[in-house]
């Protein structure tokens, strides 16, 4: 807040200085006009000064992302949240597009959960297992629960120890 007050006082002083300078040169300019001229000069100078830098920033942005594929761009959240790409591929293979799935995490996922939901679109996550035939286990699926699902006729696909998809009849 102090910086805002300081900067505002600074530009007001700049306008007063401009007014005084012009008066010395024989040009009577009121405070209003001096303020407008000072403001426009300042903004024009800052804008013109930023042109090269902003242009360069766009160049950097263009170069940085020039090799990003469509899939790489979409799945950026996997990198930032640390999701196993193979696990997502498994779930994507096992749960058909536009199907509903129930997601059971083995640990609190936070942002990972959001990312998984986004990446699995157009599959829809539902709130209870009763709403779907597909149960996705993420993070150490309980063995007893998987056995129980098998007894009910579920087909279970696993990826390592941590991930499983059960298709229940």
């Amino acid at each position, binding site marked *: 807040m102090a910086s805002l007050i300081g900067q505002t006082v600074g530009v007001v002083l700049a306008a007063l200085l401009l007014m005084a300078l012009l008066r010395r040169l024989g040009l009577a300019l009121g405070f209003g006009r001096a303020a407008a001229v000072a403001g426009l000069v300042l903004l024009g100078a800052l804008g013109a000064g930023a042109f090269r830098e*902003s242009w360069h920033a766009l160049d950097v942005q263009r170069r940085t992302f020039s090799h990003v594929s469509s899939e790489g*761009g979409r799945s950026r959240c996997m990198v930032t949240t640390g999701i196993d790409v193979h696990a997502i591929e498994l779930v994507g293979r096992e749960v058909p597009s536009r199907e509903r799935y129930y997601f059971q995490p083995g640990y609190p996922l936070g942002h990972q959960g959001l990312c998984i939901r986004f990446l699995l679109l157009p599959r829809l996550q539902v709130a209870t297992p009763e709403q779907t035939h597909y149960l996705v286990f993420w993070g150490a699926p309980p063995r007893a629960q998987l056995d129980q699902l098998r007894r009910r006729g579920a087909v279970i696909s696993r990826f390592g120890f941590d991930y499983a998809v059960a298709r229940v009849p």
Partner: protein
Amino acid sequence: MRAAGGFVAIHAVFAAVGMALLFALGMVSRVRDIPARLGPAYLSGVAAVMSCLVLLLVVGVPIRLPELALTSVLLAIGFVAIRLWLRRRGRPPAVAVLEAAGGMETLISRVAVAAIGLYFAVGATAYAKLATFGDDWAFWSFKGRALYDFGGRLKPEVFLARPAHPPHLDYPVLQPLLESLTFRAMGGVHLQEWHISLWILFASFVWTVGFLLRSRGVSMPIVLAPLAALALSPYASQIVMVGYADVTVACFVGTGALAIGLWLDGGRYEYALLGAVLLAGAANAKNEGETAAAAVLVGAAVVLGVARERRWGQWLGASAVAAAGAAPWILWRSAHGLKNDDLPSLGTSLDVGYLTGRLDRLGSAIDSLGSQLAMTGRWLGVFPCFLMLAIACIVTSTARRQATFYLATIGLMLAVLLWIYWIGRPPIEVWLAPNSFHSANRVVTMIVFTAGAGAIHLAARLLGSGGWLPQAAARSGSGAGRPSPANSGDAIRR
């Protein structure tokens, strides 16, 4: 090829509807005026069409390309019919024919316009291959994809179901719906190229501010200097990069506030109506847009009340248009019990003990928002310059009402933000962290855009540039349609 063609086509549709809207408002009257009005046409077209589509969406109509086409055609026909009817009644165009000044001024202006135009045109290529970041994958593009994947409907599993939903279900859906329609036009999910649309919205904002001020006779050098600062502000281009809706909402709020400000400055009713359409777009873009639109209209009411102007009918008309545009989403959200999980109940938030117990949050929020607005590296000094110009207007009694309007509007916007930060549930650090795309850094965008547009208006008044209607004529309420440099259909030379 299909994707590129579809991308161009959907933008052309919005520009065409917006052009019809400008035609209805008497802001374009000759074919050769069309190229100079493409930016404002696109921005107002998006606001008008998307507000109607949000209404259809919440009543259960699936929003796909046929619905977009039909709505656009009906709106365009309606706007043209309104203009023809008004013309028969002898109402002159709201905007005078603009003619360029001669000599050095024109040369400098053309070079500056070309430089800004080149910046936006070449800059667009930097937005074609971006990744999907943070809140974009968490809910903006998430909702956009869901609308695309599931027939253009508000699928309950995404938009209503708990806990399996993206965060911020209460946020309005203009941007996700626009994204889904862009995907449909392009024939597939193009999350990377979608960012170019946000860049085009930003460019349209700059163009619209320039157009509105030029339409009131403000000379190009006065318009260009602050406009360059707005266009080249580094942080705006970064927010476009991450794909959030802060620049989108700021584009509508900034231009809406300027249009209302020009109406208050003796402008024709058409300016208020254009402002209302743009504010409806703001309200449909983000929650902050709803309160900002209300702030603009309340700010206008304050000025009308203080100045004892008899233009309440026009104010009510504009407010009704903005409210009608904003209402469908607000009603749908209320009907389904969707509310901002970050905020406590009204009873708690008004509890004196609750408020006094967290006064430190208010202090931090004031400090943080002030610091953000003063960040020259991000916003190129736009806000301090605006404050200085507003102070100059008040001290010198020049355009006091206009300065009061912008100060009141921005003050109200800030007050709402401070209130949210004061009463909000999350730790205040989550919202105020300075070095990322956290809340306080981004929400000031709409304030900076409003201040930037207002700064040009106030500077023009201080320098006596533009064909401003004498206050007495505006106060009498007869300003609308009265011949004046700004209001007549004659060419005005700058």
